[in-house]
């Protein structure tokens, strides 16, 4: 009964989404307030019905209803509760429903928090979101029904892919989708702006917090995916340039460009058509990402659902949504005007340069991801593109972007003078260079590339520090506390996020440059030394799990030359009988400046095992940096000025005045 109700709720939600789009657009076009007024309540209704459908599927999973085909294929009665719940989105159908659910949630949030928007504008925004939602719900109903019954019911389920049986996987997809789908709000705002021909600072200010929120969620989502591959896949890597990873990384790059471009549009009124284009691109890439993953045009280790029929639907959907909005852009954007001018050296020009660099990086990733497809389609042969390409192309593009990122906040709007910048930043530059030359020796080995990468990170830190000092000095408040309080939350957010980039760079550079690993055969009683630690292989024993049996090894870790055990590590080799898979569960001792990572390879003769031992300095800084970026975004989002509901009522001239810094 519950699955049928879920399916029914989905049908109702689809009808409501169509109504939401139709009534909103008609209302906005004719100016009939009664129609526009309904769009908000319909949006709420639509969300409730999608939520009900999602809850119905989650219920089927949690209660192990093996008369539902999807549950049979992706769950098992012995699966622990949290994974039975997470299995809801462990399948293609379920993850599409999660997508629709997230979209409903964002629509709901817009209808709640944007009451102060002009009625016509809000109506159009909700209309666009309703259209997108209708497209996705129809996709689920036509090609990916998660509620399909299996008659007669199965005795037992085939179990969730063991790779997905991990706490990270409970949170990673929802976060990622929150980000992906969140860009739909920025997209809806952009389309509305094009329809209304209204692309001003107020518009930018309204869509900014939504974009920042989506970007922050996406950052967290990508970070968790990376952390997951680090501790689940068992060979210590954290990013593989896999097509599915790229599919989430491309919207992130576009979104990063977008939040910065929006800042310029809000503060200075420039970059308007560029900002709109970025908003369209960011969401389009989310859709393209979905297409790439779901259609099977690219294979990857992640793609667990491929079906050409779905591919055709998503492609058509892409043509309508992306093609339609880019067509609208080509038609309307020439008329939006350019806004205020700026000099070649100014904060605008640096933000523009960074925007361009981010987009070039995006194009490089897109090209690398799609290159095999291009060549195949042109019958030029079949090739594959691996990390060597991405590493070689990505770093040189991002290095100047990071350099400029540190300079931008110091430069003044409209016109900055190079001699001023030099005076403000010379100490920062000197300290960064000196520290970058010395640090590699402290860390153990000098190499030009490491020194350069460290310098980039240090430069971000020192230049940001110089910026903070300058900012506090020029604040009119008499006390330090007063000066600190006088700064806006969005400024704190930006500063924190930029420092996050530095932390990320330190993590990547140091772990790539100084990690040590050992692959060896160890029998009980054997010792090995890695990174100043001594690992003793004590032995193995059998450990039962809820839906697996595991061989668990014990390693006693001591500092070299000391008898005290610092940590006991228990890596496992798990055998999932139902899914017929073996999984390596690495044991990781996480520390602020290093991870100790032990994973079991294969058993070799007798009690001996193939063992991998890693010492990974600063590896957690990679994710710490991403976390800082995301938190920076959330800080910026809580800025007071976004909560000023009255702003819409303020006359235009006053608003423009209030916005000039």
């Amino acid at each position, binding site marked *: 009964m519950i699955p049928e109700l879920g399916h029914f709720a989905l049908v109702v939600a689809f009808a409501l989404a169509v109504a939401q789009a139709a009534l909103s657009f008609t209302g906005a076009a004719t100016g009939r307030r009664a129609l526009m007024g309904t769009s908000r309540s319909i949006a709420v209704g639509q969300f409730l019905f999608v939520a009900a459908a999602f809850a119905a599927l989650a219920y089927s999973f949690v209660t192990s209803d093996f008369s539902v085909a999807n549950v049979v294929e992706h769950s098992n009665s012995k699966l622990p509760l949290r994974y039975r719940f997470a299995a809801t989105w462990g399948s293609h159908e379920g993850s599409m429903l999660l997508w629709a659910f997230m979209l409903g949630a964002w629509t709901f949030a817009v209808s709640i928090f944007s009451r102060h928007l002009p009625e016509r504008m809000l109506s159009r925004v909700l209309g666009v979101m309703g259209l997108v939602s209708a497209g996705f719900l129809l996709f689920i109903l036509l090609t990916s029904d998660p509620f399909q019954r299996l008659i007669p019911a199965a005795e037992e389920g085939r179990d969730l892919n063991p790779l997905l049986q991990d706490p990270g996987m409970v949170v990673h997809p929802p976060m990622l989708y929150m980000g992906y789908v969140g860009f739909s709000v920025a997209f809806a705002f952009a389309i509305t702006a094009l329809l209304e021909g209204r692309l001003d600072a107020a518009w930018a200010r309204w869509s900014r917090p939504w974009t920042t929120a989506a970007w922050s969620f996406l950052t967290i989502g990508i970070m968790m995916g990376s952390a997951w591959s680090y501790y689940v896949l068992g060979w210590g890597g954290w990013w593989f340039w896999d097509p599915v990873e790229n599919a989430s990384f491309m919207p992130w790059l576009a979104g990063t460009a977008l939040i910065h471009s929006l800042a310029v549009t809000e503060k200075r009124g420039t970059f308007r058509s560029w900002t709109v284009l970025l908003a369209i691109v960011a969401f389009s890439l989310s859709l393209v990402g979905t297409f790439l993953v779901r259609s099977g045009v690219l294979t990857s280790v992640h793609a667990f659902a491929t079906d050409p029929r779905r591919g055709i639907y998503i492609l058509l959907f892409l043509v309508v949504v992306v093609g339609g909005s880019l067509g609208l852009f080509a038609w309307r954007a020439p008329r939006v005007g350019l806004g205020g001018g700026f000099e070649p050296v100014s904060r605008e020009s640096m933000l523009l340069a960074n925007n361009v660099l981010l987009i070039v990086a995006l194009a490089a990733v897109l090209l690398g991801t*799609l290159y095999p497809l291009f060549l195949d389609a042109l019958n030029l042969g079949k090739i594959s593109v691996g990390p060597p390409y991405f590493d070689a192309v990505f770093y040189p593009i991002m290095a100047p972007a990071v350099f400029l990122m540190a300079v931008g906040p110091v430069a003044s709007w409209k016109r900055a003078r190079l001699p001023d910048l030099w005076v403000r930043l010379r100490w920062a530059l000197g300290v960064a260079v000196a520290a970058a030359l010395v640090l590699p020796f402290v860390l153990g080995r000098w190499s030009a590339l490491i020194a350069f990468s460290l310098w980039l990170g240090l430069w971000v830190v020192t230049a940001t520090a110089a910026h903070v000092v300058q900012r506090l000095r020029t604040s009119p408040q008499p006390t330090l506390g007063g000066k600190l309080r006088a700064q806006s939350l969005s400024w704190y957010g930006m500063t924190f996020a930029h420092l996050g980039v530095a932390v990320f760079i330190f993590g990547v550079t140091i772990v790539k440059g100084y990690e040590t690993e050992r692959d060896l055969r160890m029998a009980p009683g054997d010792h090995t030394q890695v990174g100043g630690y001594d690992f003793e292989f004590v032995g193995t024993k059998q450990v039962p799990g809820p839906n697996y049996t595991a061989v668990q090894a014990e390693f006693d870790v001591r500092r070299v030359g000391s008898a005290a055990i610092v940590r006991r590590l228990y890596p496992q080799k798990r055998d999932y009988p139902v899914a017929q898979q073996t999984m390596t569960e690495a044991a990781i001792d996480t520390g602020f400046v290093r991870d100790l990572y032990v994973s079991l390879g294969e058993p070799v003769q007798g009690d001996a095992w193939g063992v991998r031992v890693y010492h990974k300095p600063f590896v957690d800084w990679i994710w710490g940096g991403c976390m800082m970026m995301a938190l920076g975004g959330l800080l910026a989002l809580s800025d007071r000025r976004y909560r000023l509901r009255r702003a819409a009522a303020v006359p235009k001239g006053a608003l423009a005045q209030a916005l000039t810094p």
Partner: protein
Amino acid sequence: MKALRYLIPLAVFAALVGFFAVGLTRDPHEVPSPFIGKPAPAFKLARLHEGDQTFGPEEMRGKVWLLNVWSSWCVSCRVEHPLLVEMSRDHLVPIVGLDYKDKREDGLQWLSRHGNPYLLSACDDEGKVGIDYGVYGVPETFVIDKQGIIRYKQIGPITPEALEKTILPLVKRLNG
């Protein structure tokens, strides 16, 4: 016309859609038939372990053998690798590795870590031989007969099923 440049994004997207549409009609798992039944393209590459020696497919004349394309950066290779190690331990069929677009030291390290199932590996560091063989992605495995004709191509990791049902029976038949 200045307004024309606003059409650029749409044009780029239209091109992308074209590629996607063609991409949808192709199955990336499908064997590109042109290579089946044709002689294995000749090459001469340095060996991975004995860097001063070379290897060419003609050296395997008279044997049924597998050419396995792998790389240290390839994620899926780790999935099939234990199977290859098992095959070489049981001496089922000689396997020659083609280390594709890889650095020598990375490849050597990878083999010492995961075990070396190969009779030998050839270094295709520029990926040129891979192009000759129509390598779509790593891993791929070719079954080549005594006359040097490609008889089968496995795209993606060798699964236990593909091994039992397709590859081993084929090897047996070609040997018989």
